[in-house]
């Protein structure tokens, strides 16, 4: 077969797929469409009570950013076929390490943050190794870590400080160059938004455009098949567990510096919210399918709903109802999209 003949037939074939249809089979479609709908809803219902002001925008973007920072690596891990339920506890633990380190042991802030990061790497490695070596479901392994880590945090915090909250970080951190990097603001918008978007770009690039990203899809889609063609599946999964744990440290640093205090209960339910954001964003619970962009929009929906409800004047008690319904609708929609993707020709 000649080269030119090959290419011309191939090209003809490619053009038969309409761009619309291609776009309709993207995993993040539901999350993008959902974000637009939610935005329109609150713009109409709560537009004149402050949802559309820069203050309102900043408030929901901050909530979205804090969830999104964790949701990006969590979605990668889910595409890689595993869960990490310990991220929420990791946020509480690393917040405490930073707060206790700086206030009780007078460590420079950067040392305390590095200490928390080192701890996160150990937790991530532990999660990853146990999952990979024992073959136990990561759901169970990290559920154990969720309880153990939270317990350790509460126990040690009480042992060292006698309390479960540590405040007064302002004196030790106010002059630190890390303060504006993690808790500064640009034009009234918290800098955490930049971290969120930066991570989103980085995560998307890694997933879509690097060798490692292809391995994530392989490891999550079918670990045995991926191993057979030479993908280091275990290394991929362990790396992803370390990434989720480290993202928890980033979030904890941002929270501690912004609030000037740490609480042992920080990050509770965050692990489930991150999974929900990823699933709304099109990630499959069984792995091998999903997108970082989807998780970013999933987090955005979370942010808009949690703050939007406040602006509508409806009691925020109803927030979780909204989230629950949203999650179900999104999953149904994603299911439909995925079956379309498998038929698409």
């Amino acid at each position: 077969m000649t080269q030119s003949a090959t290419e011309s037939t191939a090209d003809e074939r490619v053009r038969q797929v309409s761009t619309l249809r291609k776009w309709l089979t993207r995993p993040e479609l539901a999350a993008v469409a959902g974000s637009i709908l939610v935005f329109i809803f609150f713009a109409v219902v709560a537009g004149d009570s402050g949802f559309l002001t820069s203050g309102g925008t900043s408030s929901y973007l901050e909530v979205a950013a804090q969830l999104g920072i964790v949701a990006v690596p969590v979605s990668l891990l889910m595409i890689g076929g595993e869960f990490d339920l310990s991220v929420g506890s990791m946020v509480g633990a690393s917040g405490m390490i930073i707060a206790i380190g700086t206030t009780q042991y007078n460590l420079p802030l950067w040392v305390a943050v590095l200490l928390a990061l080192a701890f996160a790497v150990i937790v991530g490695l532990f999660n990853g190794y146990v999952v990979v070596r024992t073959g136990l479901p990561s759901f169970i392994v990290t559920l154990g870590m969720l309880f153990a880590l939270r317990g350790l945090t509460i126990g040690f915090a009480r042992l060292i400080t006698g309390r479960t909250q540590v405040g007064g970080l302002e004196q030790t951190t106010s002059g630190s160059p890390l303060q504006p990097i993690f808790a500064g603001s640009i034009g009234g918008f918290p800098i955490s938004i930049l971290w969120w978007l930066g991570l989103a770009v980085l995560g998307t690039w890694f997933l879509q455009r690097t060798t490692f990203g292809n391995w994530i899809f392989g490891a999550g889609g079918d670990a045995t098949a991926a191993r057979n063609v030479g993908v280091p599946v275990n290394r991929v999964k362990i790396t992803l567990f370390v990434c989720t744990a480290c993202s928890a440290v980033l979030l904890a640093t941002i929270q501690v510096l912004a609030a000037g205090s740490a609480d042992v209960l920080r990050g509770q339910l965050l692990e489930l919210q991150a999974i929900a954001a990823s699933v709304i964003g099109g990630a499959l619970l069984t792995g091998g399918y999903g997108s970082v962009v989807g998780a970013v929009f999933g987090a955005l929906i979370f942010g808009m709903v949690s703050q939007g409800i406040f602006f509508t004047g409806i009691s925020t008690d109803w927030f979780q109802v909204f989230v629950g319904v949203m999650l179900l609708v999104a999953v149904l929609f994603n299911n439909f999209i995925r079956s379309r993707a498998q038929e698409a020709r």
Partner: protein
Amino acid sequence: MTESTPLVEVRDVSKYFGSVIALEDISLHVKAGEVMCLLGDNGAGKSTLIKILSGVHQPDKGAYLIDGEELWFESPRDAIDRGIATVFQDLSMIPLISITRNFFLGREPTKGKGPLKRFDVAFAERITREELSNIGIDVRDTSQPVATLSGGERQAVAIARAVYFGAKVLILDEPTSALGVKQAATVLRYIARAKEQDLGVIFISHNVYHAHAVGDRFTVLDRGRSMGTFEKDETSIEELEKLMAGGKELDELTAELQENGSSESEATTAQSNDQESNE
């Protein structure tokens, strides 16, 4: 490498799983431009042998030679690096990701340097399309998920992938077993084409007709032992089939059934007697 040196050879290989003898003293070899067929019923040890050949398992006894050089594989990756590509029954493909991503999974082409080193998607898509049309299948869009392909097409993608990555020896694990008649014929054609390209092919099957159509040499396995190796011109489909079915055992069974047939009338009367006494 001289013409007579086999690309791959195993000598007197044995593999045990605890007290189970999976393979005992198996020898086989394949040369360039040759299709070596491995025949056997379920549980004959075909899968274990493939796993040894492809580096998944290490044998407990025996020798493994590549181009006449004795060595052991630590992992499937080692085997791939030495040009031995295995297309497993599950095809080692991820249904939900694109044909291109599957094609290059584990061996992604990259461009750029250092932290900007990245997966060269455009190159990957072009090569995938070219390689697939070389082997004779038209895919409309290589970014569509593998799940949209038929069984035969997936097989073709897996074979094209192995050939593209410089396989000198192709090990095909039951490539035709899950396919319809037409698709099986297509896959057999791919095998013939691989042979023309001077590859060595080890074709595992329990379908004698498929094997005989493309094979040059046949080794029959039964319960972990070799029943012998035959050149194409010294054997026939019937003979191979008989060997696979366990020749002697089948003869005994036939004899037994005939015996039963003659004593059938006695059996029925005995049975009716039983029923009467039960009532």
